[in-house]
């Protein structure tokens, strides 16, 4: 088996290496990947959406459908992990031996986590809100914000996190993010535009169509942020506790 695997992977590698000879030179501005569509985005996205960050403009506006289903994929992954692992009946508390390390847990770790977590959440909001002008956006900010909750649940335990943030709340918000995204798109339909064409929001927001596209992008990024944050917490909580939702790691 190992010999076959070695042969397959080496054969694949050789084929790909031969194929690399046909690739354009590395860093060539005239390579096929950098000419057709991406040139259009670079030259026009600022004029059409007033967002200086091309990546945000393409992600949230030109390829808005893609990103919407992307968010739906994360949501589905969260639900799938929940369905695979979650046990409906809890084991009785008496059966579970409290782990020895739980006693006298490190006070430095706890205090540090208490200090770091709010900073992380603030930074996550900055990354979200400043995604139009600097690297960042809903996915990146959401992961940072989710990580702050995961940090708390590692420093304390999962029970502490889940006593403040009920499982029901987590799943509610992860669905809400997708709903915000699709809702912003659907309101465009009601206002007479195409689905996810934010320029029709200009009628409500009282700004120009170009500005409306920029604001619409911020709106859907907020939806992505909420979904990613809560799905990250849900994935961690399920995987770390094996679906028990008890004390976690």
């Amino acid at each position, binding site marked *: 088996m190992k010999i076959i695997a070695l042969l397959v992977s080496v054969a694949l*590698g050789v084929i790909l290496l031969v194929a690399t000879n046909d690739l354009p030179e590395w860093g*060539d501005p005239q390579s096929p990947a950098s000419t057709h569509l991406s040139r259009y985005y*670079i030259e026009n996205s600022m*004029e059409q959406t007033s967002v200086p*960050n091309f990546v945000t403009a393409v992600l949230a506006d030109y390829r808005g459908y893609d990103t919407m289903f*992307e968010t739906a994929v994360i949501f589905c992954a969260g639900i*799938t992990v929940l369905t695979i*692992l979650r046990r409906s009946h809890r084991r009785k508390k008496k059966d579970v031996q409290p782990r020895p390390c739980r006693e006298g847990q490190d006070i430095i770790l706890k205090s540090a986590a208490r200090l770091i977590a709010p900073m992380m959440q603030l930074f996550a909001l900055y990354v979200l809100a400043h995604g139009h002008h600097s690297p960042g956006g809903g996915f990146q900010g959401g992961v940072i914000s989710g990580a702050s909750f995961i940090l708390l649940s590692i420093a304390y335990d999962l029970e502490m996190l889940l006593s403040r943030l009920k499982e029901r709340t987590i799943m509610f918000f992860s669905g809400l993010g997708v709903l915000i995204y699709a809702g912003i798109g659907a309101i465009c339909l009601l206002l007479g535009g195409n689905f996810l064409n934010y320029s029709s929001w200009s009628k409500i927001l009282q700004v120009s169509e170009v500005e409306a596209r920029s604001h619409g992008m911020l709106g859907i990024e907020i939806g992505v942020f909420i979904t990613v944050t809560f799905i990250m917490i849900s994935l961690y909580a399920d995987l770390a506790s094996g679906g028990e939702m008890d004390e976690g790691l």
Partner: protein
Amino acid sequence: MANFLEAVLGQYNNWAFIILLMIGIYAMIAKNNLLKKVIGMAIFQSAIILFYVSVSLKKGATIPIIAHGHGHDHGAVAHAIDAASYANPLPHVLMLTAIVVGVATLGVALAIVQKVNRVYGTIEEDEILEKIKE
């Protein structure tokens, strides 16, 4: 030999991705432990992500964000944009997508591995096959 070395060094980025790709696919096929297979999958994904990011590179170009783009005179900046001076944003967008899908598939894969371990008491493939035959 000198020719070969030149060819390798001229395309060292592609060599790196292809070697990572080979490591990943070998781990996915040959490793017996399900967790190691999942790690192989993650390595495979990273190789492809790195490849796309390297495609987006242009010599002498900067990050795909317009410098001083958030002033009040949007229109004045817009018509002076040279496409060759910004990196290609499209592969970045596609890979942002791929990274997120990677996280989602990794989460689901880990959940399945945990479930397999709960049902069969092991994550070694041959031991699982034996238990299925019994």
